């Protein structure tokens, strides 16, 4: 199997990135790019491999961030909140996803309801400024959000905070671990069933698989990864605000995945990193509006690069190197557009 080789390669690439990236860009920015990459990965996973287009992935990102902030204020220690920030969004995704999938909702209806879910959270969080909105010791704070919670520190030395450079190394390590974990998952029997469901729900059902459960599980995993991303974000920004749930945030995740390429795991990571950095660069000039560029990129990506950047690069690469039929076939298969999977039927 190529499994070991792939793990080794991922680790080497990861180590290289850890050493090389800080030479060019400050680690504070790199950390947030890692966080975005995790968020992109979570959507890339459920959309590209589970066939679930979620218009509200920001919901689980925000839930992770809020869960961390609220738990950290109540516990005063960072590590239990760290895990809570993964588990809570995963559970909420499981319950909400279960409601959708057991109701056999698909396509545009799924898109609407995930969007509505995010909107409800956004609106709710915005009206929690009053002093009766308290969870334990934590005030929800409404529009202003929650500042001033304990951030991650070394488990054996709570006075040694993980921030700055170390937060970057920590985030990048988690990104690599999640990447490898999802790769492994996709190769496992569950992963294959999941891809089977994406390819043909009816057939998976006729084989005896409970499609609703499979999709709910996929959605919950995506929610957990998004939650982890939100948790890191809370540690990075040291404040959480309702804007984490905004439509703009959801839109950005989708842009990352499209630009990078749905149907691959690496694509969304690449898309998030490129677009995140582009946004950062655009922020340093005032000639062209930032939103305008993001919008133009999305329109052009859908029209000209419907498969995303990463599959195109791999295609070019395999063609040039000419690794023979097998490699070509595989990459083109992986790169096939997943987005319209449900439309085609």
């Amino acid at each position: 199997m190529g499994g070991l080789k792939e793990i080794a390669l991922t680790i080497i690439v990861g180590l290289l990135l850890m050493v090389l990236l800080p030479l060019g860009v400050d680690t504070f920015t790199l950390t947030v790019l890692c966080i975005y990459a995790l968020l992109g990965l979570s959507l890339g996973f459920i959309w590209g491999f589970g066939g679930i287009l979620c218009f509200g992935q920001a919901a689980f990102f925000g839930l992770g961030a809020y869960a961390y902030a609220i738990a950290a204020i109540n516990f005063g220690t960072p590590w239990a909140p760290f895990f809570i920030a993964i588990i809570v969004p995963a559970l909420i995704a499981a319950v909400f996803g279960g409601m959708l999938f057991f109701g056999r909702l698909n396509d545009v209806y799924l898109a609407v309801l995930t969007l509505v879910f995010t909107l409800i959270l956004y609106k709710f969080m915005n009206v929690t400024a009053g002093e009766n909105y308290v969870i334990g010791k934590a005030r929800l704070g409404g529009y202003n959000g929650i500042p001033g919670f304990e951030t991650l520190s070394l488990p054996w030395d709570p006075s040694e905070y993980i921030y700055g450079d170390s937060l970057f190394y920590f985030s990048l390590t988690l990104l690599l671990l999640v990447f490898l974990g999802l790769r492994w998952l996709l190769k496992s029997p569950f992963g294959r069933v999941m891809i089977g469901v994406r390819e043909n729900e009816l057939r998976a059902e006729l084989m005896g698989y409970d499609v609703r459960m499979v999709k709910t599980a996929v959605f919950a995993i995506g929610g957990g990864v998004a939650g982890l991303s939100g948790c890191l974000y809370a540690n990075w920004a040291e404040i959480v605000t309702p804007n984490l749930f905004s439509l703009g945030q959801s839109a950005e995740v989708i842009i990352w995945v499209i630009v990078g390429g749905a149907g691959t795991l690496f694509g969304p990571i690449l898309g998030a990193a490129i677009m995140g950095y582009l946004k950062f660069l655009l922020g340093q000039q005032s000639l062209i509006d930032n939103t305008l560029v993001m919008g133009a990129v999305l329109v052009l990506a859908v029209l000209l690069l419907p498969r995303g950047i990463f599959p195109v690069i791999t295609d070019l690469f395999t063609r040039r190197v000419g690794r023979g039929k097998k490699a070509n076939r595989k990459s083109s298969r992986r790169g096939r557009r997943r987005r319209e999977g449900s439309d085609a039927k």
Partner: protein
Amino acid sequence: MLNDIVVEARDLTVRFDGVVALDNVNLKLQRNELRCLIGPNGAGKSTFFKCLAGMQVPTSGEMIVEAEVTTGYDPFRIARLGIGIKTQVPSVMDGLTVHENIWLAARRTQSTRKANGIVDDILERLKLGDLSRLDVSTLAHGQRQIVELGIVLAGDPWLVLLDEPAAGLTGDEVERMVNVIKEINDYATLIVVEHDMHFIRQIAKMVTVFHQGRVLIEEDVDTVLSDPIVRDVYLGKRR
């Protein structure tokens, strides 16, 4: 064992927006039977098939499989009763290889190792070995039909439901399909929906003819095919 009824439909009725697709259908099926359902388009045979497969919830009436009322079951629960289903338009996983398609079907009940063995067996039985590493989407229609049959067999069903298995097959492939169906019938009960008379002649024993949502006649194949009313139904409607 002669009266071992495994499938029974009781007063099964399906209505769509006022149109009656199935009208009080009663039908019984014995273990190890090979039953063909025929009838012109819109006669209700496919609707009946869907009710049995869990793809259509009847308006009223009951479907009973081995003493279990399955009315309104989702397809996956039907499948988990040990029922293999091939749909009218081949339902396969396009982006996956032939091997992966069949493996997924076998893996639901078996360990990974056993599933691999089952896949090899089936590939051999259906002579799909050459195609096993190709994406199903690249295959011709007939080949896809065979792959779907492989998927059905991989679940090791005791009851097999086939909707128009011969549609779009070449002469050779039809022959292979006939043999496979006969082979399956050695150990499993079969329901075949079909309107290709030539094909039915080759496999059928008992035939149920549907017409306008009702069971018109239920007899052995020779009686049915020589029945003047059946002829009229077919000629009157089509062909």
